[in-house]
């Protein structure tokens, strides 16, 4: 597709529950990035992929966060045992050559 598609748009989870977010990159784009936007303004890089391979995972909290990009499937970001501080908007971005990134609409995760 011509847009980065993220699902769901909104997700509410009780503390301790699992959350799984999906991202379909623009067709033909080899790179996928995940960012977390907290407090409306602060963007934090989480992880990037080149096709199905992890490219940079320096921003990923090691304990509860995981991500995958499998062939012929949307990429996913999973949070095990969510905490209140995980409440944020999670943005996925894709890039053809790894330089200019196009962002999706985001998934707003609310942990209650």
């Amino acid at each position, binding site marked *: 597709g011509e847009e980065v598609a993220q699902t769901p748009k909104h997700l509410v989870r009780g503390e301790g529950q699992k959350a799984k977010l999906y991202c379909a990159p623009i067709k033909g784009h080899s*790179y996928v990035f995940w960012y977390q936007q907290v407090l409306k303004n602060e963007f934090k890089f989480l992880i990037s992929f080149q096709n199905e391979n992890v490219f*940079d995972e320096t921003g990923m909290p090691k304990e509860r966060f995981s991500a995958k990009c499998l062939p012929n499937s949307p990429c996913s970001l999973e949070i095990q045992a969510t905490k209140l501080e995980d409440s944020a908007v999670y943005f996925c*971005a894709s*890039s053809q050559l*790894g*330089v200019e*990134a196009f*962002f999706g609409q985001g998934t707003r995760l609310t942990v209650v």
Partner: protein
Amino acid sequence: AQSVSQHNHHVILSEAASLELGCNYSYGGTVNLFWYVQYPGQHLQLLLKYFSGDPLVKGIKGFEAEFIKSKFSFNLRKPSVQWSDTAEYFCAVNAGGTASKLTFGTGTRLQVTL
């Protein structure tokens, strides 16, 4: 590590006023520079980008930015703002090269009044 500073947190302008939003970055190597806009409830949209060449870059919707290497700055400008420009503006940088992560500034909220 890279860092980006946006000194103006909230700017209020009347329609037709000129706009300049400051952006300074800290990084010793080659960088790519970006300005993104986020309209209320929407995703980030790319306004303009600088990779190399002419330091004055023009983007969409009448926006432009000037890269001044000696000042580590990439300020965003628009000669005459419109009410529809009301949004959050984010400056971002990444290290030159492939698949470098973006480092964002904390954003500037622009409010344009009629």
